[in-house]
């Protein structure tokens, strides 16, 4: 009799404990749903406000005081050129740093300082990079408020991302590959050039894409170096009809970028400009989503396909 009563009591206890499992799992799911809902709302909000404004003229017009005629030509050209400069500096520097730290660096205090430094740089607010660029690139080095200054700033900003991705994918290469290459008489650089870099290139690419997606959306540091918000001209073309055919005048040109154009329109009171902001924002979101999505897909492929 008492045995049966104990059994029901125990069963009730277990059931009540298990109920907490469900409650908690539901809470977790609800928290996740808040994220999903916000993202959906954000995307839908941009799309509903912005898509009616999207047409060919919007992409090929300069900004204007009349909202219906304003476009993002100078903004997207500026973004592309700044990204070019950013990639030109960030990729070689980041990959070289990653290789040095994984393959070459001796275990000493200098290496420790470099490592701690990179961890800390990843946590520095982006606007501080803007101040660095304002003090150093714009005034000290005399680059002015140019595409070069912005590209360098964003390159420094995404450097930790590229470095960490490089190091992670190098670390995933089994030691046996290196030992095999050394056993055949390869020098350290030959091992890196012929084995380490090719095998880690997909992982590095993933990191570069994520970094570039971040750089495209960065607004604060580019505003801080003094990018103008109203640019009604394009930088000089990089390829000319006369000798020497290739000119680098564009790197010193004033510019604007997509997020700054969007910020400028968002801070105006007229509803028509807000619509422009939504349209520019929609393109910006699509671009960053596409890049991040590509990176995630690439990483997924790497994980599935590489069996050492």
């Amino acid at each position, binding site marked *: 009799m008492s045995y049966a009563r104990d059994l029901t009591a125990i069963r009730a206890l277990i059931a009540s404990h298990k109920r907490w*499992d469900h*409650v908690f799992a539901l*809470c*977790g799911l*609800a*928290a*996740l749903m*808040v*994220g999903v809902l*916000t*993202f959906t709302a*954000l995307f839908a*909000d941009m799309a509903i406000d912005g898509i009616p404004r999207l047409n060919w003229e919007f992409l090929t017009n300069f900004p204007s005081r009349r909202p219906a005629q304003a476009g993002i030509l100078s903004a997207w050209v500026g973004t592309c050129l700044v990204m070019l400069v950013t990639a030109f500096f960030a990729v070689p520097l980041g990959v070289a*740093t990653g290789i*040095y*730290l994984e393959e070459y660096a001796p275990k000493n205090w200098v290496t420790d*300082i*470099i490592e701690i*430094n*990179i961890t*800390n*740089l990843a*946590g*520095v*607010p*982006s*606007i*501080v990079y*803007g*101040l*660095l660029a*304002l*003090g*150093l690139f714009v005034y000290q080095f005399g680059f002015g408020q140019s595409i070069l200054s912005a590209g360098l700033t964003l390159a*420094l900003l995404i*450097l930790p991302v590229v470095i960490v991705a490089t190091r992670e994918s190098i670390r995933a290469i089994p030691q046996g590959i290196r030992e095999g290459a050394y056993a055949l*008489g390869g*020098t350290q*650089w030959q091992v890196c050039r012929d084995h380490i870099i090719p095998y880690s290139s997909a992982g590095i690419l993933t990191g570069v894409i994520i970094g570039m*997606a*971040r750089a495209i*959306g*960065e*607004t*604060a540091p580019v*505003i*801080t170096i*003094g990018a103008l918000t109203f640019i009604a001209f394009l930088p000089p073309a990089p390829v000319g009809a006369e000798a020497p055919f290739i000119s680098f005048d564009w790197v010193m040109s004033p510019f604007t970028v997509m*997020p700054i154009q*969007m*910020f400028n329109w*968002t801070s105006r009171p007229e509803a028509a400009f807000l619509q422009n902001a939504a349209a520019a*924002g929609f393109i*910006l979101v699509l671009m*960053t*989503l596409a*890049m*991040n*999505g590509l990176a*995630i897909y690439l990483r997924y492929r790497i994980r599935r396909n590489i069996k050492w």
Partner: protein
Amino acid sequence: MAAVPGDISVTPPSGAMAARLAHRRSRIVREKAIELVLFLAAMVSVFTTAGIVYVLVKESVAFFQHVPLLDFLTDTQWTPLFDDAHFGIVVLLSGTLTSSLVALAIAIPLGTFIAIYLSEFAPFSVREVAKPFLELLGGVPTIIYGYFALLFITPILQWFYPELPGFNLLSAGIVMGIMIVPYVASISEDAMRAVPMSLREGSYAMGATRYQTAIKVVVPAAFSGIASAYILGISRAVGETMILAVAAGMQPNLTLNPLEPAATITAYIVQVALGDLPHGSVGYQTIFAAGLTLMLFTLACNVAGHMLRKAFRETY
């Protein structure tokens, strides 16, 4: 290799041997040169930090020659561009603090719940979808979040509370919190997944439920990692710029009330950068002093995070 280094001095090499030695020497030189180049690339990050410190300190020193440090810390007005200029950083700090607190009140519970759910409860398929999704959420540019806060969240809040001004710290803080959720969730989740399976198995073997295992075994074991996720969230919140510049207004306002508009340190820097202050003026120098304050704040966060990690590190 035929050439033994010890032999070189004994018999002067000749012919093929000399060529091989020369080749080898040039190879060594090239290897050293490449190593030097790679080392210099790695030093760029050190130079970046040095550059940040140099620029911030240099301009701040010039600033503090105009404005006494005591005024900077104790003044309760921030009107650097007026004729009657006041430089009380407390005003901007209050905006930063309030918006960060709102953001953390959103990000820490949501992020922790998501992390525990994904690590301990979610089936494999949910996790496979949710992790990349969180990453996408973290990749949305902050200016987009700013637009969203100003034109979507604020109207919704005004629907509940009609007196709410169009610019306010609350909606900016809420959106900032949602922006930080992915960082907090993914770092805490990594920390929880690093807890060895045997600990969970031990707990289950004692008859504990999933909930009990998660709360009483996994979370304490992963606490150092979870704490550093929180710290990272704090430094993200403090350094966030565009959401606040767009949605919180840029009026300096000494308040801890999230229903009011206020400027933060970061929003002030943006505001000054949008105008054109002459290089070298006090107004120009204020943004570096503000930046230095921000930098010291995040540095303090990083140091605190490091100490927390050390204090709570569990070894298995």
